[in-house]
């Protein structure tokens, strides 16, 4: 295996990482198994559930269908890297207030996707929030708490901006 390993160099949550990775290893496994960033969860490993959503150069992406070797030179942010992010902080607060999580397994992916919605769609009504979030699955909450949490953050930001 190591014979085929490729060297990559990337940034993970702001820190420089040099690694030698097997070409078939996906980014989710790389982050979880090698970087011990287990906050990124794997719910399907075929690109549908969104639990593994992370940021690559600031854009949401699915780590389970992204090869680690393809991330040479990129900057990766996982949920662990969002501790001090202002939007994520507002979302965590809102998720707790609105019961936007139960088992918490979908939550890291939801937060990353929701952060993107808040930043890109300040005009979103609830149906628009639902459409924008439809790439992420949750089996516990029935989505109501998540929609309400995103609504709360968008409304608060709009009020503060106005």
């Amino acid at each position, binding site marked *: 295996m190591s014979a085929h390993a490729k060297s990559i160099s990337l940034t993970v949550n702001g820190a420089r990482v040099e690694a030698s990775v097997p070409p078939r290893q996906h980014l989710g496994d790389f982050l979880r198994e090698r970087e011990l960033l287990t906050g990124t*969860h794997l*719910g399907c490993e*075929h690109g549908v559930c969104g639990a593994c959503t992370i940021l690559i150069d600031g854009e949401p992406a699915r780590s389970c269908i992204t090869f680690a070797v393809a991330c040479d030179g990129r900057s990766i942010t996982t949920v*662990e890297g969002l501790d001090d992010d202002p939007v994520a902080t507002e979302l965590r607060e809102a998720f707790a207030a609105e019961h936007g999580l139960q088992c*918490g397994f979908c939550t890291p992916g939801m937060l990353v996707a929701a952060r993107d919605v808040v930043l890109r769609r300040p005009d979103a009504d609830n149906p628009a929030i639902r459409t924008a979030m439809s790439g992420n699955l949750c089996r516990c909450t029935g989505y109501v708490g998540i929609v309400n949490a995103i609504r709360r953050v968008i409304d608060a930001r709009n009020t503060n901006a106005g």
Partner: protein
Amino acid sequence: MGEVSTAGSGVGARVRRKEDDRLLRGRGRFVGDIALVGMKELAFVRSPVAHATITGIEIPEEHRGAVLTWADLAAGGVKPIRAVSGLPGFKVSEQPALADGKVRFVGEPVAVCVAATRAEAEDIAASVFVDYAELPVNSDMLEAVKPGAPRVHDHWPDNVFLETNVGGNIAEIAATAPVKVSRTIRTARQCMVPLEGKGVVAHWDRHVEQLVLTTSTQMPHIVRAGLSECLDLDQGLIRVVAPDVGGGFGWKGLLQPEEIVAAWIAMRLDRPVRWTEDRREHLVAAANAREHHYEITAYADARGRLLGIEADAWVDAGAYSVYPFSACLEAAQVGSILPGPYDFAHYRCRTFSVCTNKPPIVPYRGVARTGVCFAMEQMIDAVADAVGREPWQVRLENLVPPEKMPFDNVTKKHFDSGDYPESVRRAVAAIELDGWRARQKAGEVDGRLIGVGFATYCEQSAHGTAVYHGWGIPMVPGHEQAQARITPDGGLELRVGVQSHGQSMETTFAQVAHEVLGIPLEKIKLVHGDTGLTPYSTGTWGSRSMVMAGGAVATACRTLAERLRKIGAHLMQAGPEGVLLEGGSVKAGAAAVTIREIAHTWYRAPQLLPADVDRGGLEVTAGYKPGSDHGTFSYATHAVAVAVDPEIGQVEILDYVVVEDAGTMVNPMVVDGQIYGGVAQGVGTALYERMPYDAEGQPLASTFADYLIPGFTEVPHVRIIHMLTPSPYTEFGVKGIGEGGAIAPPAAICNAINDALKPLGVIVTNAPMTPEVILGAIAGQQDAGRGAA
């Protein structure tokens, strides 16, 4: 910030969850997050065929030693899983953790491969060559019960785990009833799909000399019992730990073959091993829930008053009997709960638990109730149609009225409390039925058809000893235990044997304790899900944890309160009368001593204690059982408005209302969350989820692209209306609520669709009600469900 609680932070308060912070920061700890030094990964070779004799297993020379089969496990003394129902006539199946010469469903584990990484273990699995001599397959339960069907277990005379007969002769009613309606009704086979798959890490702890199995389970103590039986290992040599569990819904409420294999290999190799179920494994090997078939007839008078119900019900129980619930829990429930929340006198139900070449059936959220409600509520609407009344009126005609509570129904179910008809009236008002009826009459510009549907159910939960004994389940719950311990700094530690996997118990049990002791929530710590640290429990299933373990927590805390008062009174030199425990302090008149000071006295300054102090100190284990073994009955009416497109068969949910009564709510936010989540799963059952099988028993879905679970845009923004009738039999009057949301949606949505299709003169009776099913009904192809009126 957040909602202002109505009652501080005790019972009834909408407080935020203690578990949220770690989960929101990606700092939870699920099985897949655990890596132990030297750990190996496992991958399973699984059967690609539904029924076959294994004539050979070829392991490439270079992987010998890395691949193990049943021959290895059996030589090591491992025994097959046996879950024997206590009901007379039950046929026993034996399920070896790896196939023993024969496979009986697609996905059954045949061999296990051990390697440094999961990817390498999968490479090895792909290199193992298994020779299968295929056998005829039972892919449909109705075919499997016919004479001459191939047998799943060679030594059985047929393919029926158990046949039961409930109720008596209703021939007279059948002959004389003014109204008779019959239906053929079916629910599909489903996967439960917790977003975290199953997973297990096993190792031998050399220091304490114990097998430690960290597993994504709802019932650590039961897994320990099962492992002990299969591995022939004393329970004292096994510790089962559940870490954060990413949803369960029943799929994690059983002893799994993979747990046995992982445990045995860890001991055999003396190395930690890990297996994590991937999604494809789950969809293929764990399509194990819900599949019912009903031939049902309702008898009624001309007003729609039910006179009797007669049914034959088949449950596809799959290839084996699961531990601990057995292959018959589902059908046993069907027989006893089919009458639903209704008061009628004549009943007969015959059930068959059918053995087929599919994964073994496991109780999924709501268990049989979802299928039963789907059948019974269609019959209520059918009766209403036959007598020309509104379905809600016929419900009111038949529901057990509040003045009859508590009430023993036709199958001797003891309904504890509530106003069932009021839930219907409120649902009718909340959905604004008149408005929809007017809109129906006017017609839609886009040609869609509007329909409104209702479904009412009551849900027995927190089943007690007698109920489980009566269902023949080889795991009868007794008194639930909880430990409560004041820490030396005046905090509180609670230990319970149930396991939270999304239900928020770290918060809600703390609320219960706070209610009794007044200790602030942030100083209360719940320890759960670990056989090494908690009292025995059958675990979290059957909407039981808050009633049973919550009751035990309250009971233990009351005893602690007693002891705290006594020590506190002594420290204040007060007599026992008039001494209160309030707000975290013991008070006598103007004097007060905090729990922290009392704790300090007990642990650090015992010279100050009264001479006759209770020697048990500030640590209590208490057992609890509700006042009735019949459990609690929460209930609800769901009302839904839909638009059905007769051109493309698509259903849009326009409004969804739940009027429910879970008795006293410990945390209304959490109760709402359980209902929202349950309804979402029910929408899946109603409209999307189905594991199709071909005639060879091949599952035809294996990814989320072809097994559809509802997402943000499929699930409605459900409106919930609470009624609050306390149970007379439980602590604080709480009732079980975890499953309820998932019970009624298929029935309510089906009734709404049929209401919409009424002008076309067709009905649908099978779930899921996909566009294909609806268009089929419209085309007159699937109209067989409508019997003679």
